């Protein structure tokens, strides 16, 4: 059963991975971080990514239609791409109260977005279910 660090290190083994973090999107706190971070500071990146995650999670426009207003994260993941990299944010669904997501930063040249999205979803599940 992986802990937070093992989960992040596993994410770093994906092709093109540059950095990974587990972030609380209500407070903006990085609960764990490995590798690099855009701008060089994991805490700043976590706070900025948390803002994006919160907007996506709180606005009804992006919520799944089967459980609007529920306690579970209404969004599965977020993808942001730019000229040289991808950012993948995967919401972690826990049975206890939390608001966390996994943030993976990939280089565009080596990263495989489709693969990373599937793997990160599996990792998010294993993180809380073992």
């Amino acid at each position, binding site marked *: *059963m*992986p*802990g*937070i660090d093992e989960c992040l290190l596993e994410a770093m083994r994906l092709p093109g991975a540059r950095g990974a973090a587990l972030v609380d999107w*209500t*407070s903006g706190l990085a609960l764990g971080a490995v590798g690099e971070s855009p701008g060089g500071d994991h805490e700043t990146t976590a*706070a900025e990514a948390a803002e994006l995650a919160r907007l996506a999670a709180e606005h*009804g426009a992006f919520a799944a239609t089967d459980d609007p207003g529920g306690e579970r994260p209404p969004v599965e993941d977020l993808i942001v791409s730019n000229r040289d990299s991808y950012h993948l944010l995967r919401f972690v669904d*826990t049975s206890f109260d939390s608001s966390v997501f996994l943030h993976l930063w990939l280089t565009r040249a080596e990263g495989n977005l489709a693969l990373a999205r599937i793997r990160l979803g599996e990792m998010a599940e294993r993180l809380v279910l*073992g």
Partner: protein
Amino acid sequence: MTVVDLPPPLPVRDKATAVERAWGGVSPMLTRLAAERATGVLVREGGALHLDGGLVTYAESPLALGLDALLTAHGTVRGEVWREALSRADEHRGVARFLLSGGHLAEGALQLCHLAALYDAAYFALAPSSTPGRFRYGVGHRLGAVVPVPVAALERETLRRRDLLHRIWPDPRPDQAPLVRTRTAAAPRLTGRQQSLLDRIDGTRTAADLARELGRQAFHTLVDVRRLAAAGLIAPRPSPEPPSPPTAPGAASAAYGVPGPVPPPPGAAGLPPPGLADPPPPDIAERLAHTTDPHITLLKRLRDALEAL
């Protein structure tokens, strides 16, 4: 009015100033204990921090749910499983070991929930207090080591959380007081979490009561409470009689419009103090609290602005 109601941005810590402020800004005693790698428990007015070798291993506060409450509130771990683990834990093998080895919880889930509970309770334990903390040297917490957190990281995060609340809504009164619903002409669209919080506001429950009832992290509840207050949907219940004794550490000095000996930073009103050095008579405090004297209101605004720096 635009369609979306953008929440204020999360504050990004300026490292240089944060380090400076954390140095003695949160708890000089804690900084010293970390430096000497102490083991034991630091009891402060708002809660307690458990240290092991200078690292924080657990935090508890009457205002926040403990790890046990967070885990059992929504059935992640059954109550009897927790109690059994607690009864079998000893100095060498903590509660965490039993939960993990018994397969009751994944390690990631335990770490995640533990960190959430730790930062949550530490926010209240590190709130400004009017009495000095006490440290009892001894053994580590019964939970056992899960993810120890360095003191500096905890202090930085606590300061950042105060800033976050202050940016949402600069009035800290809703954090402590019983809450009432208020009418507003243009209510924003609420999230499911905010709605279930709002539904339970009845003029008697405080933010801490709501967090406990809903099995949620107390700080997350404060974020929602301040947002609802900013949206004009809730307000602290006005006290029916003159405030006596003062309800917040800064209340008495705030009433006089000057900072007290321990000015509470914005966003983190401490717990009710056992006794201020020289509380003003209730009638004067009441009169000053509602004064319209331009000099006093100017001083109050100046104080608020300085605290917001």
